[in-house]
């Protein structure tokens, strides 16, 4: 029964309309409306998924627009990838909305928050269902809009407003790449539908250009290497927003796009290599920065960037299965991690991990679900993280990319390290400051539990055969990462951090907010990572982040120059004409001297000239 798939995005949109229009009166009821809407969508998605298993497929809905002779019909694609993502988005979305009832409890713009959330759900579901580039682009920008609105939700804080704008413009830069790609595609292949991407009749060079341009969109949205600067700042938004949008769903849209248009990428080898390398660079760089960051949400943000880099890397080497599988599992445990972080922040009202400590005792459920999530992301065998990461690593190896494989392994190692650094600092040890931590209300902890269950069992969703060599590699990663973190934080807790800070005091002051250098210890593995981290952080701060601000600053200057040019040169020319006429009128006025003789003189001079012309003309 696939026929009702196109209704899925409809219900969240209805909820959005209701909440926006009657938000003020509904108050708390608005949460109920948006949650019911997403549960209905969840139900339809499940029905569609069941229908798909029995053999249902994509179908057309209606004509939206016609470009010249070529009509553009909107339709719905129902296949493995879209159904899986539908399920993920609706499940995670509903849980996070339940969670945010508690988290946003005392916010005075409660109904507006839920209105934006349902708008986001509607756009995301629409994006997953669309079967052509134009429809995808429309919802793509819709999702971008919601991330803007939700990041700058607490707009009283100037940092949130700035972060929102930065997010929208950076993704927008990516989107223009996507738009030019769509234009080029329409121009060369006269079609915009995904279904016929496999057999386009255009030459390889053009195909690569189109693929890369579309990849630009993905880079922007999934915060890949050059355009990743907006995601860490996006943490200014409320944590459920970070969980839903900046961890589980929206950022995954980039990877989904690459997967959806995979036919384009496979057709010519050139584009895929780029995807792989961008993914690799992003993964490694983000992982290194995450290890030195001490803001709980920023660590998770860099971790998300790093995991997305891994997915891109997998897709880039042809590992379609592994990439999409990790996409699904990552959505679950990353959402779980963010929600746990949220409930921790909700309890202790600070985001700096080194002000927390020993919270496991006071926050039982949050603590343990936090640990489960970290285990999943680190890739501990029975949990879902292991299966998908294992799948990706084997695909990378099978496709014969030893160098990329090494980067993937290092990234996974770092992931395990910084996750458990987080766990040990926040949950274990003695509380560093007298924070009265109390467990979050039930409405927040229940979704955590449900997500923890999904994080554990999502792995079995797809049957994967395990190679022993890969099992060994994974075990090495897990033990190495967690062990180092254990040695680092539990044993040498007091002494190590203070002495390191004094040695690098100068550097420390510059990038204090970026990371905190722990005690220097002998193990060779940690030292190269630290130096790499320093380079990545400063590189990021000065060059890339700076570049974005620089362009903004330059365009302001360009704007000012052009407005001056416009005001004085172009406008000046017009006023000059007016002044010239005024000037010569003033001059000629003087001719009228008032003396009768002058008048007669001028008159007969004119007559004489006329006669002279005639005489000269005559001969």
């Amino acid at each position: 029964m696939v026929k009702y798939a196109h209704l899925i995005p409809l219900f969240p949109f209805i909820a959005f309309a209701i909440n926006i229009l009657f938000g003020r009166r509904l108050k708390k009821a608005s949460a109920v409306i948006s949650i019911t809407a997403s549960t209905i969508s969840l139900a339809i998605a499940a029905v569609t998924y069941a229908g798909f298993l029995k053999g249902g497929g994509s179908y057309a809905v209606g004509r939206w627009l016609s470009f010249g002779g070529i009509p553009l019909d909107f339709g719905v694609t129902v296949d493995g990838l879209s159904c899986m993502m539908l399920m993920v988005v609706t499940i995670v979305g509903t849980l996070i909305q339940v969670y945010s009832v508690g988290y946003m409890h005392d916010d005075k713009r409660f109904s507006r928050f839920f209105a934006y959330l349902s708008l986001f759900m509607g756009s995301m579901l629409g994006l997953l269902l669309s079967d052509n580039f134009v429809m995808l682009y429309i919802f793509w920008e819709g999702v971008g809009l919601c991330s803007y609105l939700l990041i700058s939700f607490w707009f009283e804080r100037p940092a949130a407003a700035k972060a929102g704008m930065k997010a929208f413009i950076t993704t927008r830069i990516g989107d223009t790449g996507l738009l030019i790609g769509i234009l080029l595609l329409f121009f060369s292949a006269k079609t915009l539908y995904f279904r016929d991407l496999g057999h386009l009749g255009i030459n390889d060079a053009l195909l690569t250009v189109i693929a890369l341009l579309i990849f630009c969109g993905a880079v922007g949205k999934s915060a890949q290497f050059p355009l990743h600067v907006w995601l860490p700042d996006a943490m200014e938004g409320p944590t459920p927003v970070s969980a839903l949008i900046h961890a589980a769903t929206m950022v995954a849209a980039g990877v989904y796009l690459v997967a959806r248009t995979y036919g384009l990428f496979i057709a010519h080898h050139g584009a895929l290599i780029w995807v792989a390398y961008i993914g690799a660079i992003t993964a490694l760089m983000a992982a290194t920065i995450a290890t030195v960051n001490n803001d709980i949400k920023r660590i998770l943000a860099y971790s998300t960037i790093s995991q997305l880099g891994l997915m891109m890397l997998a897709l880039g080497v042809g590992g379609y299965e592994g990439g999409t599988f990790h996409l699904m599992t990552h959505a679950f445990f990353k959402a779980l991690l963010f929600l746990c972080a949220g409930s921790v922040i909700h309890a202790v009202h600070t985001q700096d991990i080194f002000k927390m400590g020993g919270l496991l005792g006071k926050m039982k459920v949050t603590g343990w679900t936090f640990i489960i999530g970290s285990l999943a992301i680190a890739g501990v065998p029975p949990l879902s993280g292991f299966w998908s990461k294992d799948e990706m690593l084997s695909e990378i190896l099978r496709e014969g990319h030893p160098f990329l494989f090494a980067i993937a392994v290092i990234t996974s190692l770092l992931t395990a390290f910084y996750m458990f650094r987080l766990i040990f600092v926040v949950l274990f040890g003695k509380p560093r400051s007298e924070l009265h931590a109390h467990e979050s209300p039930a409405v927040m902890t229940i979704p955590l539990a449900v997500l923890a269950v999904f994080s554990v069992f999502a792995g079995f969703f797809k049957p994967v055969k395990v190679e022993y060599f890969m099992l060994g590699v994974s075990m090495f990663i897990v033990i190495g990462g967690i062990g180092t973190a254990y040695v680092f934080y539990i044993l040498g807790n007091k002494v190590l951090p203070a002495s390191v800070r004094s040695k690098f005091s100068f550097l420390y002051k510059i990038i204090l907010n970026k990371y905190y250098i722990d005690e220097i210890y002998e193990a060779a593995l940690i030292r190269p990572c630290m130096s790499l981290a320093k380079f990545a952080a400063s590189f990021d701060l000065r060059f890339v982040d700076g570049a974005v601000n620089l362009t903004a600053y330059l365009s302001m200057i360009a704007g000012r120059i052009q407005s001056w040019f416009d005001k004085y040169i172009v406008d000046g020319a017009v006023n000059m004409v007016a002044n010239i006429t005024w000037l010569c009128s003033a001059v000629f006025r003087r001719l009228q001297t008032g003396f009768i003789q002058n008048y007669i003189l001028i008159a007969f001079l004119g007559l004489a000239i006329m006669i002279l012309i005639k005489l000269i003309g005559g001969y």
Partner: protein
Amino acid sequence: MSVSASIGYFLPELILAGAAIAVLIAGLFIRNKAVLGALCLAAIILSICNMPHSFQATGPLFSNMLINDSFSEFFKEITLLVMGLVILISIGYKPLDDESAGEYYFLLMSAAVAMMLAAASDNLIMIYISLEAISLISYILTAFLKHNRSSSEAALKYFLFGTLSTGVMLYGISFIYGLFGTTDLSAISSALLSSGVNGLAASVSLILIFAGLSFKCALIPFHMWVPDTYQGAPTPITAFLSAGPKAIGFAILIRIFLKNFFPMFPDWVDIVQAVSIITMTAGNILAINQEDIKRMLGYSSIAQAGYILIGFVVGTSLGIQAVMYYIIAYVLMNIGAFGCVILVFNSIKSDCIEEYSGLSRREPALAFCLTVFLLSLAGIPPLAGFFGKFMVFAAAIQSKYYMLAIAGVINSVLAVFYYVKVIKFMYLNDPRTSVKEPKPFPAKLAIIIALIGILVIGLFPVPFINWIGNSLL
């Protein structure tokens, strides 16, 4: 046609002459100006009624001194229209109260007779005599305010400049007489058609005649008298000068240059084309930053003469139609504008444009009328001024005078500067004084006639085009 027979066709002029003398005598007894004015108006209306219609008999009168064709009839009707409006607005003009009204109306009536003679004259002698008559009367009228310094100075300048230019014209006529042996225009044109004539001498003497006539129509080299005379003369007379003699000047220009001396058309066309462009441009540029509104309207009338000249230079029948249509519109616009200037002068006692600020608040109706006249002069549709310009530009483009058309178009943009400047003062600035003078009814009547005239001619030009159509040469 013998003298006695042609008296029958000379009725309107006779009526006016009779009225002139009657008014002069009545002036001795009746002090009230309005009665005398009414008497003159009655005479004008009477003479319009029994104007000899062209289809009755077109032919020479008074042993071909005059000619009674539809063309002259058109200009006679224009003259009467001008005279009627001028008399209406002069009744309300305050400074004229202490002058003797009888003489004033006598002069106006005789000027009307002289103009009707000029319109119909088909003989160089007759043209000279009637032109000189018109000029003499307008010199005296300009100096009518005996104790006003600027009025007498203006009259003197006007006199000296005018008689000299007419003298030059006479000198030209004498040569034409020498070349053709006769002063009868139709005889000359038939001579021109049959046998060629010494081109150079003829064209030089034609230019001399053109000089005299360009004084009458205030074209560029001979326009110097206009600003001072328009500013100095009493405003009704300025209105009269800007409309009456100018229209007649163009009538004679067309009659001589386009009807009788048409074979010599190519000789003088490029000079007159240059004169037209210079007249337009200089008129507009000089008018831009004038302070006195009468002086500004003076320059604007020079510029309008430049536009009319475009139709004349083109020389085609569409060109002449355009000239005649433009003259109707021009006459109405100008007299209307001067009428408003009179009423404003009555209340604020000054012609300085700055004094006009805030007029829309003090007298909205008057400000509206003046705005319509100024916009029509600027050539904004749907008013008559625009259609006049449209016809003139159409004529220019039809016979490929692109330079002329482009110059005309640019000038109509230049003109907007000073027309809108007055409107700006009236509407956009705040009023300075709040004195309000009761407006005499006849002046209001004249302005309303002119206003309706402009709107009707602009929106429904068909009857007027037919009227012009069948009164071509």
